[in-house]
């Protein structure tokens, strides 16, 4: 790891002032991704601003039934929170399916939003990677890409977003609150992460001097009946090959409300709008689920190594919806 200057910010104002003063600075929270990337020489900040002492650790119920989560709430605490477990079980499950007990005790909500890809070519500085080094090319497209994306990909980049939490947040219409010396902004999660296009190094809408301060979940009664299904190469402690966050409400045999998002298959947390559109008002059941999954995946671009993800995603979507409608335990 290269050396850097370290500061610890006592409050939000100091933190955003400090980052405003150092263009190549990074905030550090739990450090679980940043420290690893600094050790790999992929992140090379000259200043690291410690934000773990900021008072952003609350989980509060909002009037109307939503929940506001401080950016420094740690993953394990959020997953265990009773409000989250009862109102948004998919979020609790997504968090618990990520990483390990130790890492969940360290990782923060804000940091999880900014988690970077696990693409092998991004991690190896000997390889060409447009995300790490804009314009250098992409060795992943013709290389090992079994764990990479089929949705939202470009000629420049097929790297997947590795976050589980963000998949649930995408399904839940979460809002990300960010702050800088210029003031506060509220960014819908759906817009927070960017598609790679020709600029895969630009991963989020967050400006270099902005601090994530909170995530808000709107009231969403359907989410009380939701789940997160993660499919991976080990039984635990592995990144998703495919994951599905889904909430479903069925009235009189028809889908009255649905939320669906995918992880492991896309370059950003993937809200399955097309599938939701087909499902809404359709008869609950295998045929509708198949049709919705196929429609969502019709734009998927597979490569020899990761083509299977399209079929796997289709099956995972259908199985998750089936489990939610009560037809399968």
């Amino acid at each position: 790891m290269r050396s850097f200057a370290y500061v610890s910010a006592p409050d939000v104002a100091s933190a955003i002032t400090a980052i405003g003063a150092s263009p190549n600075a990074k905030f550090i929270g739990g450090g679980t991704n940043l420290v690893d990337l600094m050790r790999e020489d992929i992140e090379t900040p000259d200043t690291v601003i410690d934000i773990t002492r900021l008072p952003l650790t609350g989980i509060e119920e909002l009037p109307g039934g939503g929940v506001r989560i401080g950016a420094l709430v740690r993953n394990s605490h959020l997953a265990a929170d009773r409000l989250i477990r009862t109102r948004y079980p998919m979020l609790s499950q997504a968090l618990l399916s990520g990483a390990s007990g130790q890492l969940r005790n360290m990782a923060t909500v804000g940091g999880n939003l900014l988690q970077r890809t696990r693409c092998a070519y991004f991690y190896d500085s000997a390889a060409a990677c447009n995300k790490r080094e804009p314009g250098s090319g992409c060795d992943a497209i013709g290389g090992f890409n079994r764990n990479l994306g089929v949705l939202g990909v470009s000629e420049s980049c097929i790297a997947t977003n590795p976050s589980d939490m963000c998949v649930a947040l995408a399904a839940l219409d979460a809002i990300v609150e960010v702050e800088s010396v210029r003031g506060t902004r509220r960014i819908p999660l759906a817009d927070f992460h960017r598609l790679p296009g020709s600029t895969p190094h630009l991963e989020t809408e967050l400006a270099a001097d902005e601090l994530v301060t909170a995530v808000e979940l709107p009231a969403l009664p359907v989410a009380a009946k939701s789940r997160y299904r993660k499919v991976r190469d080990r039984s635990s402690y592995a990144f998703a090959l495919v994951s599905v966050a889904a909430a479903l409400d069925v009235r009189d045999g028809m889908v009255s409300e649905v939320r669906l998002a995918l992880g492991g298959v896309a370059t950003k947390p993937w809200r399955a709008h097309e599938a939701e559109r087909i499902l809404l008002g359709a008869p609950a059941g295998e045929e509708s689920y198949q049709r919705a999954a196929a429609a969502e995946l019709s734009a998927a671009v597979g490569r020899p190594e990761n083509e299977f993800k399209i079929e796997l995603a289709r099956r995972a979507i259908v199985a998750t919806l089936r489990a939610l409608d009560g037809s399968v335990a």
Partner: protein
Amino acid sequence: MTLHPEVRPRPAGHTMEVRLRVNGADRTLQLAPQVSLLDALREHLGLMGTKKGCDQGACGACTVLADGERINACLTLAVQYTGREITTIEGVTDGELQRAFVRHDGFQCGYCTSGQICSAIGMLAEHAAGMPSAVTEHRHGDAELTDAELTQAEIRERMSGNLCRCGAYNGIVDAIQEVAR
């Protein structure tokens, strides 16, 4: 706007004073900010019981307790833990779990063992506090969340952040389950 006195960056390459409370004792170190908590414990405090297996947050050998919560010491900067209470294997005083590891042969080479034991202590505390795991079953919309029984499946899922390449998993799980009863 002027910087808060505490947030004036120290120049890169320089060391700073880091005060940790380790196994009940106050320790003051001069460290470069990039020194991980793990390297601070091993290389600067000589506490070699905490192990470095991957330095990537992928094996759990470096697990220590910070204010009673298990963390990976390799993926954190020591300076971030100023003022926190760190417990390493050298500070684990309740020998019951350790004796259970020996009885159940919950290790072979012994290299991952400190991390397994510290992780188990943290895990048992998490479970006692009612924290769920990925295999905890809940009925949707349950107003009253019931706590998970600490089955072998629960222990295995909750301990999955600690790799053991010798494959002593059965003994580890048996040892933890015996102590948890």
